[in-house]
């Protein structure tokens, strides 16, 4: 029996001697999940108006749109905001220049009504949306040191597999609300953990937990679900170069660019 602890010790030492990359590789499933195709959040169907389909249908018939709308828990209305968080929420409600939307950024790219796609490889997972916002997930054990991190609208993401569940740990995200007006006003100290898996065929779920000592009293948990995007045989990218919205006013739609040039 004395040989067992010895063998265990040898095994531990042998594992410790394996390069870090190889240790991580041991945790990668032999067969990576197939999440190919385009995915859209469940419960969001956008009409050609850019509004929810039910609201568009009601407007077209001259009726009052039904209550509710897009299913966007990451907007943060149910988050456990602390005093600073409440202050930021209040400031958000008083905004008029509500056109910061050159993309969705993190974490909103997971809760937009725009399609997303997953690229799953052994050493990396990338989640990409139609605005080319990306969550670039390294299969690494830890983030760079704080001194070597700089906040971005996408953050720094590392990941690992727990069976068929992809666990993504993201930090160093700039206040998402500064990038996209609909995003929650979290601080760049927020810590995001996503657990993504296919719970049944053609159905992905993402349980996300957000902790932010600056703006939240405790963990904020949200549940997202995705279904295959219909109507797409390719991702629809387009440059953001025709914003005719007169933001912060109710003055309407700016003239087409060619007319703006000729009048200016």
């Amino acid at each position, binding site marked *: 029996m004395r040989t067992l602890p010895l063998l265990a010790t040898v095994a531990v030492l042998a594992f410790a001697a394996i390069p870090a990359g190889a240790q991580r590789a041991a945790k990668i499933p032999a067969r990576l999940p197939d999440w190919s195709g385009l995915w859209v959040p469940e419960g969001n169907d956008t009409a050609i108006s850019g509004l929810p389909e039910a609201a568009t249908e009601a407007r077209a018939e001259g009726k009052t749109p039904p209550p509710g709308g897009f299913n966007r828990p990451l907007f943060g209305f149910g988050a456990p905001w602390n005093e600073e968080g409440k202050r930021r929420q209040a400031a958000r409600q008083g905004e008029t220049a509500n056109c910061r939307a050159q993309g969705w950024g993190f974490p909103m790219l997971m809760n937009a009504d725009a399609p997303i796609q997953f690229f799953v490889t052994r050493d990396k997972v990338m989640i990409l949306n139609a605005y080319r916002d990306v969550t670039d997930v390294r299969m690494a054990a830890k983030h760079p040191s704080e001194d070597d991190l700089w906040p971005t609208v996408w953050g720094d993401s590392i990941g690992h597999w727990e069976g068929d569940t992809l666990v993504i740990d993201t930090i160093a995200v700039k206040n998402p609300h500064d990038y996209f007006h609909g995003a929650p006003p979290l601080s760049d100290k927020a810590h995001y953990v996503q657990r993504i898996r296919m719970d049944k065929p053609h159905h992905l779920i993402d349980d996300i937990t957000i902790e932010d000592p600056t703006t939240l009293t405790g963990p904020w948990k949200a549940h997202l679900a995705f279904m295959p995007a219909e109507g797409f045989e390719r991702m629809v990218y387009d440059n953001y170069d*025709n914003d005719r919205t007169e933001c912060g006013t109710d003055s309407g739609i700016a003239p087409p660019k060619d007319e703006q040039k000729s009048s200016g």
Partner: protein
Amino acid sequence: MRYPIAGALALALCIPAAPALAHHSMAMFDQTKTVTLSGTVKEFQWTNPHCYIQLMVKDASGKDVEWSLEMGAPMYLYAKGWRPSVLKAGMPIKVTINPLRNGDPGGVVLTATTADGKQIGRNLSRAVS
């Protein structure tokens, strides 16, 4: 009646299931009015953050007036079967819109059909009369 965009946005943000917080507040459009326009396409702008139809419509005096009609982003239209090629300059179409509150010739497109009533792409899951 005009009301401040800030008020409309504040209202939208106060509602937990915020309805339709799109690229911008929709307060500029009068959702209590639905207007049907028949006209000729001058230009179809397949662009972000919104697509636009520039539509030439004759007013009551018979004069051509150019309307700026906003739509969703290209990806939303694509999902509904729209492509940049579905509208060509000179094409007669009919649209239902919520018009701008300020009275300018513009609005947000709710449905669009060819002149003879065929749906362009898939506007809505069910036909709206």
